[in-house]
């Protein structure tokens, strides 16, 4: 009953977020939000890694399941700030593909790493992810809308991963998660091979 207030929070936020886009007829806010929102979703490597972070977080259980979605955007911002400062990270795209392999494998073997190590693994990916998108920020038509779109898309992919990860509550679900982790790992290997060969 008391959780009924949550829609009450989400609704005004969504509506408030929607109205400026309609109110300003220029392409600035809408265009900025859309381009930021699309980036994490249309890059299959980013998408897989993000969903994998959510699934792995759910597999690890508390405190990872709630610490990851809170910490990830902030670590990712660190990567974005490095990009804005003109500091290059080596082989960003290769690191992201490698993250897909590692995260998929960790899910497949249901690895229970200590929380600090889990944070390090995820932070390497988060920094690269933020760096890849921070590079595009200065050129964005509306930086605040671009950032908002980028952050919201990232967060929603985590949420999707966490919801998938809740399958772990059922015995067959836990197995399905590990199979899914294997599939993510395989996809990551394919992505990685395209970086290494190219």
């Amino acid at each position, binding site marked *: *009953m*008391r*959780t*009924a*207030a*949550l829609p*009450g*929070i989400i*609704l*005004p*936020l969504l*509506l*408030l*977020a*929607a*109205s*400026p886009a*309609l*109110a*300003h*007829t220029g392409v600035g*806010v809408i265009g900025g939000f859309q381009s930021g929102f699309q980036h994490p979703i249309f890059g299959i490597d980013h998408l897989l890694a993000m969903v994998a972070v959510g699934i792995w977080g759910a597999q690890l259980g508390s405190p990872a399941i*709630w610490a990851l*979605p*809170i*910490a*990830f*955007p*902030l670590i*990712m*911002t660190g990567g*974005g*700030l490095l990009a*804005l*400062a*003109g500091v290059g990270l080596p082989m960003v795209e290769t690191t992201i593909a490698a993250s897909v392999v590692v995260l998929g494998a960790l899910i497949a073997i249901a690895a229970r790493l200590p929380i600090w190590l889990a944070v390090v693994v995820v932070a390497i990916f988060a920094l690269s992810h933020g760096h890849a998108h*921070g590079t595009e*920020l*200065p*050129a964005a038509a*509306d*930086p*605040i*809308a671009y*950032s*908002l779109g*980028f*952050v*919201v898309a990232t*967060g929603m992919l985590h949420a999707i991963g966490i919801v998938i990860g809740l399958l772990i509550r059922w015995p067959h679900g836990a197995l399905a998660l590990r199979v899914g982790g294997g599939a993510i790992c395989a996809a990551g290997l394919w992505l990685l091979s395209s970086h290494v060969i190219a």
Partner: protein
Amino acid sequence: MRRRTVGLLWLPAVLALAATPARAHDAFGNAGAFWGGFLHPLTALEHVLAIVAFGLLAGLQPLRPAFAALLTFALALAAGGIAGMAGWTLPDLGFVTAGSIAVIALLVALARPLPPALLIALALLLGLLHGLANGAAVPAGFDRIAFLLGMVAGPALVAHLLIGGVRRLEAPWTRVAVRVLGSWLAAVGLLVLGRFVLTPSAIAG
């Protein structure tokens, strides 16, 4: 049962509030001075994000500090608005706005109890900042008092609704959801702040 009624009561209020900017912005002049002032802060993304972050932060605090902060915010909006109308302007404050979003939202993500004085100081600064920006933007020929009342009522009402909504949350995951929102907003504020500070050349262009 009573709780449920209260919850249902403020949904239409929010819907009405959120639906208007889209329609009214084209007819800003026709909407009248009060609604012009009411909508002005709510049609700029950086203002909305700061107000949302403030509402979430105050909602995580005990009732008395939250109420004091809301009152301070409204009074500071009014004071800043009067100063803005009197011709006090500040240089382009994009990075201050982004910084205020980052700081307030980080505090939401941390979700620690704040000293009431800090919360009230944040409310004061935020209110003055947004009051100045919105007061200076009063269109010529508008009734200034009505515009001022509107530009205090709009942000204060949004903050009030968020405080009320957050305070009603009890299930643990919903509290986490508020912190996650805070972390999203903090990321946005930090990225935009970083762009101002680290790549100023991109802004000039």
